């Protein structure tokens, strides 16, 4: 309905304005032309009147009457009428039914004329010219029918042309607007689909015309992309919560039930309760991690990127973790230049990403392993690399470990949320940097690659 009505309306408006403007132009043209034609008619009558007057003064009344007869025989349709008033015999001659003569140009109205009864188109308007001679008076009148005829012909032909042009213009306008209307209808149907819950619907983007509709369609699509992203993110969060919080909740419930059953049997309950608190803390940590990850991924929170000294950050983290590695029987080394290397990043997020990688190395390498935190700069590429000589990740698993809750060893260690690498991936994605998992032969090499932006 939208398509038909809007394009029809547009076609109508265009056609109507064309008709009005053309009609105005025609009106002006016709009135100018009719003025010109009337002047010509007067000139013609004056010329004829003068010819007759010459004849009268040169050859006399007889010759004049003969000339009048000749003229009349040529013009039996009443288009030219002549009357001659003879002063000597005080008689009139000719076909013009006029009582009193005059001189000069005058428009006269002859309502009824016998000679032109069959001519219904005659409107009785005559353009006349009178000459006063010493021996008589001559009035010549020409029918205005010719002017009217010409005008009619002129306007008829214009109208016919106008009609043709109108049809053509209406069609062009209709087709043009239909194209736009079809695209509007596409957008409309996409919005309807979205409203009905199909978030994958997208507007067609035609490459041909880059007009406003094109821009609107692109904008709608990108908005829908974002919307779909955040909705799926939300669904992911709900699924994650259901997936990973149920298990510890179940454990906790069973444990507390146990405590309740043992109550009164003199068994100490402190241990059970402190275990429950640990479990609860773990639960709350997982919950936080899920929300944190969702916030970073969805971009619901504005992440401020500012120039930070990445070598200072690496050194700081190294200093913090070196003793932790040592106490666990592993080694952490740092390879990093002392000069300042700046990248645009969010300090706490990047800190968390690197800490997560180091904690991963701690958790997934056997005691005695070496881990290297290094910072490399090659022209405008800056890489933060965490590499170890532990068991590494098999090639086919490297994609999977970035997924939420994915853990290589099926037995889930209680202190791991399974979200560490997902979080690193989300943080790196948010920085528009690149995360690479490589084989360190042996071990795992994780590279965070930033291309330094000019500032």
């Amino acid at each position, binding site marked *: 309905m939208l398509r038909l009505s809007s394009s029809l309306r547009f076609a109508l408006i265009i056609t109507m304005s064309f008709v009005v403007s053309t009609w105005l132009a025609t009106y002006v043209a016709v009135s100018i032309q009719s003025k010109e034609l009337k002047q010509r008619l007067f000139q013609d009558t004056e010329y004829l009147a003068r010819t007759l007057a010459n004849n009268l003064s040169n050859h006399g009344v007889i010759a004049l009457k003969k000339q009048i007869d000749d003229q009349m025989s040529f013009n039996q349709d009443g288009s030219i009428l002549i009357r001659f008033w003879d002063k000597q015999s005080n008689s009139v001659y000719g076909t013009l039914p006029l009582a009193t003569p005059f001189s000069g140009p005058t428009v006269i109205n002859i309502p009824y004329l016998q000679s032109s009864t069959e001519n219904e188109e005659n409107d009785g308007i005559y353009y006349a010219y009178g000459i006063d001679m010493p021996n008589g008076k001559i009035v010549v009148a020409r029918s205005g029918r010719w002017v009217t005829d010409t005008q009619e012909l002129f306007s008829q032909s214009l109208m016919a042309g106008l009609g043709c042009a109108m049809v053509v213009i209406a069609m062009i306008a209709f087709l043009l607007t239909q194209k736009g209307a079809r695209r509007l209808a596409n957008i409309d149907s996409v919005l309807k689909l979205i409203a009905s819950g199909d978030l994958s619907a997208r507007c067609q983007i035609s490459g041909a015309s880059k007009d406003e509709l094109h821009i609107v369609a692109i904008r709608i699509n990108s908005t829908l992309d974002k919307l779909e992203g955040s909705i799926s993110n939300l669904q992911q969060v709900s699924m994650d919560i259901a997936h990973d919080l149920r298990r510890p909740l179940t454990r906790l419930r069973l444990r507390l039930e146990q405590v309740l059953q043992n109550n009164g049997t003199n068994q100490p309950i402190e241990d059970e309760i402190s275990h429950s608190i640990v479990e609860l803390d773990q639960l709350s940590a997982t919950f936080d991690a899920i*929300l944190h990850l969702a916030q970073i991924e969805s971009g619901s929170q504005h992440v401020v990127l500012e120039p930070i000294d990445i070598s200072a950050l690496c050194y700081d983290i190294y*200093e*913090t973790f070196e003793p*932790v590695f040592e*106490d666990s029987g592993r080694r952490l080394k740092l390879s990093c230049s002392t000069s300042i290397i700046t990248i645009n990043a969010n300090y706490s997020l990047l800190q968390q990403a690197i800490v997560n990688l180091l*904690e991963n190395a701690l958790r997934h390498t056997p005691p005695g392993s070496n881990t290297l935190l290094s910072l490399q700069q090659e022209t405008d590429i800056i890489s933060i690399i965490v590499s170890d000589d532990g068991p590494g990740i098999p090639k086919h698993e490297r994609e999977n470990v970035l997924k939420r809750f994915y853990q290589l060893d099926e037995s889930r260690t209680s202190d791991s949320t399974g979200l560490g690498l997902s979080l690193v991936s989300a943080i790196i994605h948010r920085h528009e940097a690149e995360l690479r998992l490589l084989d360190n032969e042996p071990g795992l090499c994780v590279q965070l690659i930033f291309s330094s932006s000019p500032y």
Partner: protein
Amino acid sequence: MKILYAEDDSDTATYVSHGLKEAGYQIDVVADGKQAIALATMHRYDIYILDRMLPSVDGLSAVKSLRMAKDTTPVIFLSGLGSVNNRVDGLKAGADDYLVKPFAMSELLARIEAIARRPVLKQETTTLSLGGVCVDLLSREVHRLGEKITLNPKEFALLVYLMQRPNRIQTKSMILDAIWDIHFDPKTSIVETHISRLRAKIDKPFGTQNIQTSHGAGYCFKA
């Protein structure tokens, strides 16, 4: 010490106020922001503890209006919103500390302690001398019984932090925040490791126990 506590969840309010009373505080509990502001203008309190999501006037607006009225009483926010941005918003509004729910009672108590007896950091203080440990803040040298103890920068910062708050429990998250600028909960024992390193240098060789562990709560420097 008198505390005004605004919390709309009555169970939480009961538990927390019970815990605070046990710790020896006087406490008034209200359930919404308007009442909190009303009570705050009528009585004098030493600390306000406000939940961020409160009916009628939320915690953030309550703090803003108290601060506008030139009320400088320290404020601790309790909130379920725990991202860095949320924290920053809360602190910007005029809160002095921000604790994310769920929290341990010991954490809240430690933070109340920290705020109620916030150390007056005199600019001219260049040395700390407590329990036999002497710290020169300018030369960054530490001595005990005339013996020089070499600490790395993080250990030094940790020692100074604890010595500036003697006899007061500092929780893990407070230490992480202050020394490492880490606002998330790391899965590894960063604080434990560094405390034990520090202890190995400060206490062990001298047979002293200045740096103490309060199990499940945190650490403190006993003078």
